[in-house]
């Protein structure tokens, strides 16, 4: 019997590591007649997954649907291989959630509040108290843990929300706009905590934000939503590894002629403005060759810098085209 249980637990742990963190299988959510999420498909496996999109794109609805707050109208999704409709309770034991809005239980001290949340997640009372203290120390509220939540500043409330989301040690943490309303030092602290949790390898993170910088600093994979569709899926980690750098040149002179000559060298180019062009250097082509070609074409190179496609570029492109996929 004991051996069977141990084997079952091992299988469970294996399934958690092998299965994708989130798989979307034609997931659609309608509120009344209004479609909010439309036929989302794909698999997300990253340690930290960023959900991006303009306001009303469906980021929060996607998180709420994965948490079982809204029923799927069509299709389904799976978290660690478990169906959000049929295995909702099992999924809830594996996840932690930090909501976007202020969510508290009134008249409670932080430690009392976090302990209650831990107990509701199934931790025995003593363990819940111990972990509540730990979680509050971990997020940096150790000294203020006996204070009533009503007296907390906005930044402290965000940290308390994070503490309640991680107190039971979930495998997947949903963070909905965790840096909302934070001042720069508090934001840095929050980002550091998120990265620490990600790097601990003990939990995966889904970070929903409209702040590109936050997502870029924390996430490996991003999913950009637009009007309830997946606009772009991008593995930032692979992008970074591929090190796809390009040059941005600021020139004076006949840019088209110069660009044509660069094409002759085998370089890919894109003219961005009147005096700017982006080029990807081909193997064997060096900077001095650019100056030589510029001199031949009587074009001045005023500025030259290496750049990489930033998340902002990817995001803006997605908002223009918006037909990406996994």
């Amino acid at each position, binding site marked *: 019997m004991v051996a069977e249980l141990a084997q079952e637990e091992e299988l469970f742990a294996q399934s958690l590591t092998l299965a994708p963190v989130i798989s979307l299988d034609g997931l659609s959510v309608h*509120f*009344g*007649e*209004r479609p909010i999420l439309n036929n989302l498909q794909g698999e997300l496996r990253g340690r930290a997954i960023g959900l991006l999109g303009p306001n009303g794109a469906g980021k929060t609805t996607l998180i*709420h649907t994965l*948490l*079982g*707050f*809204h029923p799927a109208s069509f299709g389904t999704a799976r978290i660690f291989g478990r169906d959000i409709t049929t295995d909702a*309770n*099992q999924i*809830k*034991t594996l*996840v*932690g*959630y930090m*909501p976007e*809005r*202020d*969510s*508290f*239980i*009134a*008249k409670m001290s932080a430690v*009392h509040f976090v302990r*209650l*949340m831990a*107990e*509701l*997640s*199934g*931790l*025995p009372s003593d*363990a819940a108290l*111990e*972990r509540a*203290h*730990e979680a509050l*120390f*971990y997020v940096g509220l*150790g000294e203020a843990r006996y204070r009533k939540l009503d007296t907390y500043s906005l930044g402290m409330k965000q940290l308390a929300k994070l503490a*309640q989301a*991680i107190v*039971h*040690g*979930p*495998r997947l943490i*949903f963070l909905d706009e965790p840096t909302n309303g934070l001042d720069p030092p508090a934001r840095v602290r929050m980002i550091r905590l998120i990265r*620490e*949790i990600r790097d*601990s390898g*003990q*939990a995966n993170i889904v970070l929903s934000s409209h702040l590109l910088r936050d997502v870029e600093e924390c996430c490996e994979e991003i999913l950009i939503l637009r009007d309830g569709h997946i606009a772009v899926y991008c593995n930032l980690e692979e992008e970074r590894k591929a090190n796809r750098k390009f040059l941005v040149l600021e020139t004076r002179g006949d840019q088209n002629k110069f660009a044509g000559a660069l094409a002759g060298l085998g370089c890919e180019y894109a003219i961005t403005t009147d005096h700017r062009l982006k080029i990807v250097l081909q193997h064997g082509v060096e900077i001095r060759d650019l100056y030589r070609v510029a001199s031949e074409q009587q074009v001045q190179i005023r500025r030259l810098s290496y750049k990489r496609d930033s998340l902002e570029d990817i995001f803006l492109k997605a908002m223009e085209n918006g037909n990406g996929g996994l």
Partner: protein
Amino acid sequence: MAVYERTYKQFAGKLTPEWSRFLIIPRYAYRDVFKSKLFTAFFVVCFIPLLVEAILIYLHHNASALAIMKVNVRELLPIDGSFFQFFVNLQAAFAFFVALLVGPPQVSRDLRNNALPLYLCRPFSRAEYVLGKMSVLLILLSAITWIPQLLLFLFQAYLEGAGWIKDNLWVAGAIVLGNIVWILLLALLSQAVSAIVKWRVIASAALLGIFFIPSVFAEVVNNLFFTHWGHIISLDASMRSVMGGLFGTYVRSTGHVVDFDNGVVRQIVLNEPPLWCSWATLFVACAICLALLSRRVKAYEVVK
């Protein structure tokens, strides 16, 4: 794991059984409820009638105490169904005031602070949440109603002897069932009101109104139409009928009026609604409360 080890770690221990988690809510709620000295004092006062009941039962069986007090046993209230019904009704009134103080903030506070997503993102269902919130009142009210009264019934049975319990076992059933129906109704009503009204004072006033406004309206209907069928909309009257039915004191015909119609004198007998109607009224009230709770207790309100 010590506090100084500030790293993220999963919980590797054994989890508590899922069925028992709804009891976490009352445990935390009582800490808050009994922080108020005024409420604690009132709660203690709720036990005074039970103490009087216990003394009366004791006196009935203690000849020497009666002799000292120079009281004849016949002068005391007889210990029978009516005796227990009187105290059940008295405790029901206390239970109502406890519900008025404790019930309204339960759900409204969570709604006001957007706390529902925090409960419901955990392995804790909406039904468990409602059950947990209701348990706050159910446990508290049980402690001042059917549990002590059942103990007093057993006390009386012990003092009276084996034959008495055999003849009066139905009284125990009436005590338990009558009280459970009442506290269940109170718990459901106060949670439903609390789920609709976000402000405690207004919620308390609304709960009071639910009992008194239909009762006043029922009396108006009764007087206008020479009937007692107006009681069908009064929760208070319905509960009285149900209690009467359980304790065997329910009478259908409760009075008559004399009416002059075209010079003809008519006597109209005033009949209470049948007992099943009173049960149906309570059942419908509970069903409406459950429907309201299921509509309001959601992680997020969806505007369609």
